[in-house]
């Protein structure tokens, strides 16, 4: 019998409690008072951080799911198999929080299912919605064995796992395709804003750029999550896996940057690189955080050898990635819209709540499901073990005969 106890009060629990309290209050404001009270959105700035941060970054940072699942299941990179499930769970929770976030973001959230029955094939957003719905389902299916394993019915369990094993490869393949499509089309949303976006962020190839930036950011996210799991959840994995992942991040960032500058040249926007305006500072800040600092850090042997070094290098990469996506979705439009948008606190509170919920859900699944290999804390024995003679194995069969 376990008695229910008041949970221990720790700093982190207090912080989580405060985040959820603020999120709950923000939710009340959003649904009882409306956008005008809960947000700084306006006719000039109809999309704020619920799109720029919660959706664009949420989806982008979940890109580790399809890359690592693809590497393990399709390309046979067996040494990453121990973390494949974790990457899938991270992606699944990321997408789930993005989808749930639409309850706050949409003006008429109860109509969320409309794109599934009212089609407009010309709309990039329509394609994105379909891909995200399908891919979240695929992720749920990829992740489902972790839950089914825990079911008490043996027959169901075995039949399900048998069936799942047969379709897994197809699921992963479809998952990689769906991801590649909507990771790109998230950028495709911005192609039609021609003339409104500042030239440093407008591109006809925004699709390719979004795809190229999501992969390193998604992998950096997996590095962070794995490091934290090792640090605080007794997870034991080969730390060289993190190092291997970091070897992919840096070259991807280089590819992204080269493509970006080539694209700026093609759009005749190189002249904007050094204009004395505020956008220039944002652009170079982004270059520093998303490209320069991560490249230096990921190439320092001291950083590469230490897991915490990789953790911080990934954190900087993610910060840069977030800045890049916020620049594309918000900063780039400021000059045309003159909106002067700064998010109101409920917008931040809702986003923080969703992120925190995803982190807690990840923690729960690592602790209670078979996501990552863990060492278990064995309780101290309550009785004295009897002294036993040790078994001595003969050195080799021949020796025993003599």
């Amino acid at each position, binding site marked *: 019998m376990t008695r229910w106890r008041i949970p221990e009060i720790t700093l982190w629990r207090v912080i989580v409690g405060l985040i959820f309290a603020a999120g709950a209050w923000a939710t009340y404001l959003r*649904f*009882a*008072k*409306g*956008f*005008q009270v809960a947000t700084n*959105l*306006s*006719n*000039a700035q*109809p*999309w704020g951080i619920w799109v720029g941060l919660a959706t664009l970054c949420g989806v982008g940072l979940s890109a580790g799911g399809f890359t690592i699942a*693809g590497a393990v*299941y*399709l*390309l*046979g990179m067996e040494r990453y198999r121990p973390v494949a499930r974790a990457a899938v769970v991270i992606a699944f929770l990321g997408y789930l929080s993005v989808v749930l976030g639409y309850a706050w*973001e*949409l*003006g*008429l*959230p109860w*109509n*969320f299912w*409309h*794109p599934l029955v*009212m*089609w*407009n*094939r*010309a*709309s*990039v*957003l*329509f*394609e994105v*919605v379909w891909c995200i719905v399908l891919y979240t389902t695929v992720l749920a299916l990829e992740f489902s064995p972790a839950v089914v394993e825990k079911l008490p019915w043996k027959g169901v369990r075995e039949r399900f796992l048998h069936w799942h094993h047969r379709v897994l*490869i197809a699921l992963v*393949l479809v998952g*990689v*395709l769906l991801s*590649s*499509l909507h990771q*790109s*089309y998230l950028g*495709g*949303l911005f*192609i*039609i*804003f*021609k*003339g*409104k976006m500042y030239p440093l962020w407008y591109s*006809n190839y925004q*699709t390719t750029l979004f795809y190229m930036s999501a992969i390193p950011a998604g992998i950096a996210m997996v590095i962070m999550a794995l490091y934290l799991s090792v640090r605080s959840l007794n997870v034991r994995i080969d730390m060289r896996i993190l190092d291997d992942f970091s070897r992919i991040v840096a070259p991807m960032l280089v590819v992204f940057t080269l493509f970006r500058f080539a694209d700026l040249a093609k759009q005749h926007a190189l002249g904007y690189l050094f204009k004395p305006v505020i956008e220039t500072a944002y652009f170079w800040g982004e270059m520093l955080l998303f490209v320069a600092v991560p490249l230096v850090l990921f190439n320092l042997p001291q950083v590469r050898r230490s897991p915490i070094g990789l953790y911080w290098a990934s954190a900087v990469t993610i910060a840069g990635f977030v800045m890049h996506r916020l620049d594309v979705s918000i900063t780039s*439009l400021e000059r*045309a*819209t003159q909106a002067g948008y700064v998010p109101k606190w409920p917008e931040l509170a809702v986003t923080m709540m969703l992120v925190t919920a995803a982190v807690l859900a990840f923690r729960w699944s690592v602790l209670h499901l078979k996501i990552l290999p863990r060492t278990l804390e064995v309780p101290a024995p309550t009785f004295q073990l009897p002294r036993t003679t040790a078994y001595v194995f003969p050195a080799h069969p021949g020796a025993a005969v003599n």
Partner: protein
Amino acid sequence: MKTKAMLIDITKCIGCRACEQACKEVHHFPLEHEPVLSATALTVVEERGDKFVRRLCMHCQEPACASVCPVGALKKTAAGPVVYDGKKCIGCRYCMLGCPYSVPRYEWSKLVPYVKKCDMCAERVMAGKQTACAEVCPVGATIFGDRDDLLEEAQKRIRENPTYVNRIYGSEEEVGGASVFFLSDVPFEKLGFVKPPQTLPLPSLSEAALGEMPTVVMIGGSLLAALYWFTQRRQQVMAAEAEEKAEKEAKNVLRFRDKERS
């Protein structure tokens, strides 16, 4: 019914704002004047120097708003108006950003908010009437009629009066053309008109991006399947080779043992 349109001649407008008021009456909005477009002011008359410029939905021939809407809540009708169906809308507000003229407004203060924009009095037009703003204009600065006729009329005015700028804003240079035309004797840029980002309709940009989808799926899908087959096969071969090697070694051991015994 032929495609309808409106022609707004800035040289004629006297800034009486009768169009604003008529619009508000038709849409049952509170009647007080608002300086800029809002969810309750679907057209406004803005002062630019000594000129008066009406702002309203341009009713594009190939509207970006209709193209970006994921549920097809916005539609270009054959009669000319671009209309909005609130029953379909999910409130994503992509139309507001997609519109090159930044016209659609949102009911930010409402708990059940909808998009609001000029609907070119679609119901009245279907019933064979004029738009409310054109009907009420005392000086004929806004006139309503068949699109072709109005284009001809605008060209005639430019031909006959050299003070006009030689351009019909909204005819075709502006993202594929619209169903609202402006004539002016001052360059449009000076009156705060949006400089159109391209002459082709904007939806062509999304189309180009979406057109790549089948290629990505086909090539990506076959590439992945091929890679999977390849790695799978390699693993099988490696496993078979390892087995063979193990068998050979076992045989060697046996042979060695036999040799020793004999």
